[in-house]
C-alpha cells in the first residue's frame, strides 16, 4: 500500500514537472487584455498559457506573501510591487532573455524606477489615471447641463452627491486611490503618510458616503455601460471600456472619462516574476512577447490603457493614441501625481478609516 502511495506521489511530481516546462501561468487584472493575444502567444511559442484574473492588488499581494502561488507572471501596481520586492517575493529579470527591451519608453521607465529602482524586477504593462466616469445624460438630468463632470466637486460635494444618489454612484474599493484624491481635493499632499493629515479627509468622505451605492473595484464597468449607475470614481481604461460597451449596445448610454482637474493619480501596473515561479523561462518568453511593439499595441487598442512601450505607439489606433484621456497631453501630465506605499502602522489607520467610511462605524 505504502509503495503504491509513493508511486502515485512520484507520478504526480513527475506530471507537475512535465507540465511546468511547457506551461506558463499568468495572473493579471480582469478585463485587461485582448484574448486573441493569448491564443497568438500559444501559437507562436508552443507553450500552454493558463491565464487567471484578479480585481484587487490586495488579493494578488496575499498570494505573493503566502508564497507558492504557482504563477509565473503577475501584475501588481507600483506601490504594491515596491513592498513585495522588499519582502523578496520576486526574482530579478534576465535582460538577455528580453530582446524586445529596446521598445520600452524611457519616460515611463523613469517613473516606475521610483517603485523598482533600475527596473530590475519588473516591466511596465499598462499605466493610467484614476478619475471620473460619467453617464452624461443622466448626470445632466440630475445636476443640470453645467454639472462639474471634470472636477472632484462632482463626487466630494455632498449636495451634488445627494442628488446623484438617485441615479447611482460607485467608488473604487481601494483606499489607496480614493484617499489621495480626497487629500488633493482639500489641498493637501495626496501622497501624505501623516496620519493626522490623512484624518482630515474623514469628514469629507463621511459626508458623501451615504450617497455611494457601492464601493467595488470592477462592477462599475458593467454598471456604467448598462446605465445602472451614472457616476463612477474608477480607473481610466475601465471607464473607457464601459464607454465602448455602452456605444456597442446602442441603448442611448453615453459615458465619458475625465482625469479630475484638481490632479489625478497616475499608476503603473508592472509585470513581474515571482521568486518561486515554476517556469521562469516561460515567464520571460511571455514578457518578451508582450514587449513586442505590435502585441503591446494590440493590447492597448483593446483595453484603452496607455502602455510603457514607445515602439508600440506606431501601431496604436487614433482612438487610443490621440485620446488625451489615455495618453494625456503635456498639461494634464503635469497635473498627475504618484503615491508611495504606506508603512504598516499608517496602513492600519488608512484601512480603519476606510472601513469607517464604507460601513459608518
Amino acid at each position, binding site marked *: 500500500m505504502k509503495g503504491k502511495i509513493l508511486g502515485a506521489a512520484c507520478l504526480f511530481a513527475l506530471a507537475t514537472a512535465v507540465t511546468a516546462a511547457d506551461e506558463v501561468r499568468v495572473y493579471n487584472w480582469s478585463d485587461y487584455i485582448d484574448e486573441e493575444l493569448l491564443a497568438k502567444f500559444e501559437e507562436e511559442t508552443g507553450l500552454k498559457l493558463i491565464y487567471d484574473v484578479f480585481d484587487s492588488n490586495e488579493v494578488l499581494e496575499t498570494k505573493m*506573501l503566502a508564497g507558492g502561488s504557482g504563477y509565473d507572471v503577475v501584475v501588481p501596481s507600483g506601490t504594491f510591487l515596491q513592498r513585495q520586492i522588499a519582502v523578496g517575493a520576486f526574482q530579478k529579470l534576465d535582460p538577455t532573455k528580453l530582446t524586445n527591451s529596446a521598445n520600452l519608453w524611457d519616460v515611463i521607465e523613469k517613473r516606475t524606477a521610483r517603485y523598482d529602482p533600475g527596473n530590475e524586477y519588473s516591466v511596465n504593462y499598462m499605466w493610467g489615471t484614476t478619475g471620473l466616469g460619467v453617464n452624461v445624460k443622466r448626470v445632466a438630468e440630475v445636476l443640470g447641463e453645467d454639472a462639474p463632470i471634470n472636477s472632484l466637486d462632482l463626487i466630494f460635494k455632498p449636495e451634488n452627491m445627494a442628488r446623484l444618489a438617485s441615479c447611482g454612484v460607485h467608488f473604487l474599493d481601494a483606499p489607496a486611490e480614493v484617499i489621495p484624491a480626497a487629500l488633493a481635493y482639500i489641498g493637501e499632499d495626496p501622497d501624505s503618510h501623516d496620519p493626522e493629515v490623512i484624518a482630515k479627509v474623514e469628514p469629507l468622505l463621511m459626508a458623501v458616503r451615504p450617497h455611494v451605492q457601492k464601493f467595488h473595484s470592477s462592477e462599475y464597468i458593467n454598471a456604467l455601460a448598462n446605465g445602472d449607475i451614472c457616476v463612477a470614481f474608477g480607473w481610466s481604461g475601465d471607464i473607457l471600456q464601459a464607454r465602448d460597451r455602452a456605444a456597442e449596445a446602442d441603448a442611448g448610454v453615453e459615458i465619458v472619462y475625465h482625469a479630475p482637474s484638481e490632479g489625478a493619480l497616475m499608476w503603473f501596473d508592472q509585470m513581474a516574476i515571482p521568486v518561486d515561479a515554476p517556469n521562469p523561462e516561460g515567464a520571460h518568453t511571455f514578457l518578451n512577447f508582450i514587449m513586442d511593439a505590435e502585441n503591446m499595441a494590440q493590447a492597448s487598442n483593446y483595453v484603452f490603457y496607455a502602455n510603457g512601450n514607445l515602439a508600440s505607439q506606431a501601431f496604436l489606433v487614433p482612438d487610443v493614441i490621440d485620446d488625451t484621456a489615455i495618453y494625456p497631453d503635456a498639461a494634464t501630465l503635469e497635473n498627475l501625481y504618484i503615491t508611495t506605499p504606506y508603512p504598516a502602522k499608517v496602513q492600519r489607520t488608512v484601512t480603519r478609516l476606510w472601513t469607517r467610511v464604507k460601513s459608518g462605524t
Partner: protein
Amino acid sequence: MKRVVVALIPYLWLLGLFLVPFAIVLKISLSDVAMARPPYLPQFSWNEGIGAFLSQLDFENFTFLTTDDLYWKAYLSSLKIAATSTLLTLLIGYPIAYAMARTPEQWRATLMMLVILPFWTSFLIRVYSWMGILSQEGYLNQLLLGLGVISEPLILLNTKIAVYIGIVYTYIPFMILPIYAALHRLDNSLIEAAEDLGCSRAKAFWLVTVPLSRNGIVAGCFLVFIPTLGEFVIPSLLGGSGTLMIGKVLWEEFFNNRDWPVASAVAVVLVLILIIPIVLFQQNQQKQQEAES
C-alpha cells in the same frame, strides 16, 4: 479491530480538517505582524526549539480586538443578520415543508427534487443571477414597471434587503429538509384525535403539529444560522457598503492590512462564538436520538 478503525475515521477527519487548521490559525493569532513572507513572526524553526518559539507568542492581538469598537459591532451585526435570516427562512420554509408533507405520496419525490435542484448549479452563479434579477435595470424592476405596479425602478441591489433575499434563497433548503423529515413522519391520526377532542384546525396545528416538528425546526435553524454568521460571499456580492459583517472585517484584516495575526484572532473569536450554538445543536441531536431509541 476493524470496528475500531471504522470508528476512528471520522475522528481522523475531525483532526485533519478541523483541529490541525485551527491550531495553525491559533498559532498565527499569537504571533506578531512583520514585513516578511509569510507576513508574521516568529516562524517556527527546529534549530531554535519549541520552547524558544512558544515564549515569543502572546495574546496582544486579542487585547487589540477590544480596543476598537469595530470588532464587537461587526460580531453583533453578523449575529443580528444571521438571527433575522434564520427567522425569515423558518417563516418561509415551514409552510413549504408542511405543504410538501401534506401532498399525496406520489408527488413528494418530485417536490423534494425541486427543493434540491438549485444545488446542481454553482452557488456563485445563483448569487450572480440574483444580481441580474435585482439590479435597477433587472428583471424584477422591468416586470414591476411593465405591470404598472411602480413608476420608478426600485433600488434593491446593494442593500440589506438584497442580502436577506440572497441568504434566505441560498439556505432555505437547509430549513425545509429537516422540517419536512419531521413532518413527514407525523402520525395523522394524532391530529384527527385532537380534532375529535374539540380542537379547531389551527389549534391542533399549534398544539400537535408544531411541537412534534420541533426537532426539525431546531435542526433547520442551526443549519441556517451557523453558516450565515460567517457568510462573506452573499453580503459582498449583493450587499451595499452599509452591511457590516465579521466575514468582511476578517477579509480586510487579511488582505488590506496584511495583518494575518489580527485576522486569525478575529477568526478564533468567531469560532468561539459558534461553539455555543454548535454545542446546543449537538445536545439537541443527542436528546432526539435518545428519545427515538
